């Protein structure tokens, strides 16, 4: 109990709402645990790209002598080699959300479920429009997790009469969500539903539809569980009947478990999947975290 441990936490820079949430929950967990366990020290670093994130890992090992690492790799494929180096240096490794391109590296993998998000959303669309309908898809950035979500969604609505009129990238960003939606509205006279894939995009898309006076003719599904959207679902909004969780909070879970490994050497290794569940009016309350900036 007297031995002190240093845990490195490496997360992406808050370059959009969700990663902002990740940073927030990571910071929160670190502060909480440092109070709770005097013999735990944390090193928190945020990285805008994999070059920086790789550098952060090197620095943590070389200059901060970490005993364990919790990492949410911005670009898992690019980070695999660097994370393997940490592992080979004999450190405990917890990977969050995104799967590395090489199996068997992490001691603990707290997996986000990107395909799951697409699948769950597809399920809802199927039961919400049994006789099919016209929908548009606003995607994130052209990176793998976006692809996983969209592919799973497409597979999910396979064989139904749900027709995807169009899909464009809205870069997980409100302005682009707004622009793309505006143009979709110009382009398609009747849209029955919109999958915005992420709640930041959703905010923009909603605004566009509202301005065009067509927000009551269609409904929207976002993703991730941004507080502002959760509140709408909770209030039983017609435009936003549900949301699909993809909770940045998972990073806190990972940090907690890793901490437990060191202070209580509890059995925490293995894989733990954080499911993307459907958030409805009924269960929204349990996703409505107080004073989150996300």
């Amino acid at each position, binding site marked *: 109990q007297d031995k002190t441990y240093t845990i490195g936490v490496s997360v992406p*820079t*808050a*370059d*959009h*709402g969700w990663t*902002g*949430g990740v*940073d*927030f929950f990571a*910071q929160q967990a670190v502060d909480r645990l440092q109070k709770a366990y005097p013999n735990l020290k944390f090193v928190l670093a945020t990285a805008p790209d994999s070059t920086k994130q790789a550098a952060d890992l090197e620095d943590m090992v070389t200059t901060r002598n970490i005993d364990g690492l919790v990492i949410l790799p911005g670009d898992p494929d690019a980070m695999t080699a660097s994370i393997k180096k940490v592992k080979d240096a004999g450190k405990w490794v917890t990977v969050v959300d995104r799967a590395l391109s090489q199996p068997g590296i992490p001691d603990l993998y707290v997996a986000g479920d990107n395909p799951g998000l697409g699948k769950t959303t597809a399920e809802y669309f199927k039961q919400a429009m049994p006789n099919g309908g016209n929908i548009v898809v606003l*995607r994130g950035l*052209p990176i793998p997790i976006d692809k996983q979500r969209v592919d799973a969604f497409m597979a999910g609505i396979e064989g139904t009469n749900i027709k995807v009129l*169009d*899909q*464009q*990238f809205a870069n*997980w*960003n*409100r*302005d682009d969500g*707004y*622009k*793309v939606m*505006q*143009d*979709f509205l*110009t*382009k398609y006279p009747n849209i029955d539903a919109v999958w915005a894939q992420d709640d*930041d995009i959703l*905010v*923009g898309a909603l*605004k566009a539809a509202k*301005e*065009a006076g067509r927000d009551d003719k269609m409904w929207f599904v976002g993703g991730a569980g*941004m507080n*502002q959207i959760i509140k709408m679902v909770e209030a039983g909004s017609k435009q936003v009947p549900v949301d699909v969780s993809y909770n940045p909070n998972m990073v806190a879970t990972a940090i907690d478990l890793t901490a437990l490994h060191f202070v209580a050497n509890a059995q925490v290794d293995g894989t733990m999947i954080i499911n993307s569940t459907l958030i409805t009016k009924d269960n929204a309350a349990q996703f409505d975290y107080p004073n*989150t*900036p*996300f």
Partner: protein
Amino acid sequence: MSTAATEQQTPPPRPARIRFRLGALGPLLALLLLMILGAALNGNFLTVANMANIVARASFIGIIAIGATFVITSGGIDLSVGSMAAFIAGMIIIIVNSLVPSLGAGWGSVGIGIAAGLVIGLIGGAANGALVTIGRIEPFIVTLGSLGIFRALITFLANGGTLNLNFQASDTYSPLYSGSLLWIPVPIVIFVLVAIVAEVAMRRTTFGRHIAAIGSNEQVARYSAIKVDRVRLTTYALQGLLVGLAAVLYVPKFGSANSSTAVLWELQAIAAVIIGGTTLRGGFGRIWGTVVGVIILELIGNILNLQNLISPYLNQAFQGAIIIIAVLLQRSRRTTA
């Protein structure tokens, strides 16, 4: 002899005028071609609604790019405009929210927030200007630095997440974005007003002349008793003020700001300025060209969304190509410094 002197000076300024007309043609030509392309691709392209959408969207970067035209004409550059806009939007939200309890959610709070936004912009811009003129640091470096600083500040203020405007306050505020003056959306009205004033300032005021002179040859300007540093600083302060104005219009749009707000607006603004025919090395600038440039950039995005031919993966490539072509239509008047 004097007669001879007059004779021997052959050509009237035909060359000059011609070059100008050609230069002017460039951006307009590109605009025209894009309009035709858009109309061909989608029947709804030429609708009033779509055009209004485009211009309204263009207004934010447009207002900023107008400021950039002054900075660039004077031989400077400002990379910090995007993150400055995000920072100011965040500050406005924080200030308004903090005032609502005491002053209520009416125009009182909102008005103060707006004023604060403009002032912060002015100060931020002036700070850039001071570092460039008094500090004698390359503008590229100064504003690359302040880009980082402003971006970090908004992230810090938002605690990594998103700042949301108080709901009643945003009801008060929103007309400033979604409202109309004589059937014209407010942002468009403001954009046009700013453009007109700026065009006049550029062509008809001593300020406009002096920045062109400074951009063309700083030494000459200094020897002509022009207060070079003061004028320079003014262009950056003006840029800051206009960034503030853009932020003031942006806040009511979503009532929020976060670290991804206005990312890379600086590149779009500069691109618009150059597409418009202003020379990046300074000495010559034209506001109306910048306005056309901004519209061109918005048109590209709009057209890409209205068509189904190009894979979304290739959007950026299409954009890049158009930008090059737009400028190719008006060869860069490269005057050796």
